[in-house]
């Protein structure tokens, strides 16, 4: 093979790649993630989406709904913030899908696919950069939340666990969005498709109001919705409790239930997305 090339031919520099495929795939993932983070700085809409809309959400819900939704046992604003955390980071996963669709559309994916790099790294790098965006978003929302009356009552360590489980669940959703992004022809379609799915998924849940008042069928869906369990898990870690928890296994064991969903989603959508990446061709 390469032996047929005369010494005059330039040596392929790529031959120096590290022998360990895992190390090299991780390196690729870091390069891709870095690229996506740079993009956040350069695309104003993304920055607005990441920084401003969470603040707006907290303020709107806290003052508009907060005054109209009295609930027993806890200050509504304290109850609300955990739900908004969950909803916002799940929406954040859309960035993964739209970003991937854009890369396919613009032919950048072809460039990546022609390089001697790990194919999964493009996806891992992409989803990893979502985590970074989500961390930034959560910090800003937490500060805004603290300003409007949200409190951390179980200590910092538990609060960090609360953030961690929310981030973990959002990470799994990023892979669902990655798959959608590689499946559809353009970023706009990703946005539309995901809004159709994320809006109901985050509203038919305990995110904004307790589920007791829902009609029974809706209440059943809401109580078993993993968005409810991740919200509930967050609230427990932050100590934003005081309301009776519905007598449903999913909400009685919110951490376990959320982790089960996270693992299942990853098991299904990581391989699906990697496979779709291999076939996603531009034009």
């Amino acid at each position, binding site marked *: 093979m*390469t032996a047929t090339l005369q010494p005059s*031919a330039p040596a*392929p*520099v790529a031959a120096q790649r590290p022998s360990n495929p895992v190390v090299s795939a991780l*390196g690729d993932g870091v390069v891709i993630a870095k*690229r996506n983070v*740079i993009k956040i700085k350069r*695309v104003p809409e993304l920055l607005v989406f990441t920084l401003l809309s969470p603040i707006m959400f907290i303020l709107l819900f806290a003052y508009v709904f907060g005054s109209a939704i009295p609930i027993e046992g806890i200050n509504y604003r304290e109850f609300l913030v955990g739900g908004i955390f969950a909803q916002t980071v799940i929406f954040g996963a859309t960035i993964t899908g739209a970003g991937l669709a854009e890369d396919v559309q613009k*032919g950048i994916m072809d460039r990546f696919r022609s390089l001697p790099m790990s194919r999964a790294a493009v996806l891992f790098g992409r989803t990893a950069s979502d985590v970074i965006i989500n961390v930034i978003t959560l910090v800003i929302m937490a500060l805004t939340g603290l300003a409007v009356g949200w409190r951390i009552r179980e200590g910092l360590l538990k609060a960090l666990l609360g953030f961690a489980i929310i981030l973990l669940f959002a990470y799994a959703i990023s892979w669902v969005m990655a798959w959608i992004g590689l499946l559809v022809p353009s970023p706009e379609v990703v946005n539309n498709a995901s809004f159709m799915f994320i809006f109901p998924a985050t509203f038919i849940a305990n995110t904004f109001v307790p589920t007791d008042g829902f009609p029974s069928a809706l209440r059943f869906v809401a109580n078993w919705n993993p968005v409810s369990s991740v919200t509930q898990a967050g609230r427990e870690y932050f100590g934003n409790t005081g309301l009776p928890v519905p007598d449903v296994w999913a909400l009685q064991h919110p951490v376990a239930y959320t982790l089960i969903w996270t693992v299942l989603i990853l098991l299904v959508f990581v391989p699906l997305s990697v496979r779709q990446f291999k076939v996603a*061709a531009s034009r």
Partner: protein
Amino acid sequence: MADVITASGLVKRYGEKAALDGLDLTVPEGTILAMLGPNGAGKTTTVRILTTLLEPDEGTATVAGVDVRKDPSGVRALIGLSGQYAAVDEYLTGYENLDMIGRLYKLGRKQSKARARELLERFDLADAGDRVAKGYSGGMRRRLDLAGALVAQPPVLFLDEPTTGLDPRSRSGMWDVIRELVAQGTTLLLTTQYLEEADRLADDIVVVDRGRIIAQGTADSLKSQVGGERIELVVEHADQLDQARGVLAGVAVGEVAVDEHTRRLTAPVTGGGKALQEALRQLDAVGVTALDVGLRRPTLDDVFLSLTGHAAEDGEDGTDSPAPTTKAGQQ
């Protein structure tokens, strides 16, 4: 010389339609093969298969001895690709684009940065290197994309219409880069719609149409397939046409074509300049005034037309109105 790129019996179907219909080609080491073909001929499809972006339905292909289907990642380590549409990340600067590619090729941090700067310099992008690529012109994107293909100095390069959209200066700059690369031993497959480009750069040319190779050879051998040289003469007055035809018939090796409307006569000849001199001498002797006379060789345009039955898509000046190799002005 070993064949660095080989393809045999490539078939790729999209539904009923065959984008490639049994395509074969070989590129010997250190040479340039130009694929010439009209829109939709299957040039891009071929490049995508050879660069592992697309799997063929049938057929085999190797790059530097590595099978593109059996060991695609082995192939990727050896190739550089610049696709038909510039794959530039708009949100990164030119420098960041190249550095990212360098890192993905596993160049060390230092090496990758140095290489990025070097390539920006070479492609006339040094000043724009730290600006976001969104603001680049089409030609700048094109050059950045090509620079991206060269980051790891791959021994085999695939360039899909590398100079489409470049101005004449950038184009000839690109040609210089390509010649330099090949002089260093790079093997190169390029597709083009510009006949002049194939003529000037390529060691070998394949003409593709409807997913098949319909002709193959050096520019000269392709040209001789459509015929040899000919004298073209435009006379000043229409009443001199007959006299001129008589003279040309004496030196021609075939029939003399006359276009009365443009007062143009075309006569196939052998012996080039000698035949032209002889014709001019005789024309002078009989008192025919030539408005324009020249010896013309067939251009790739003629080749293309006669082979595919349709003209190349061509917005280029210079290629569709070829200059005569010898031109005598008014006598």
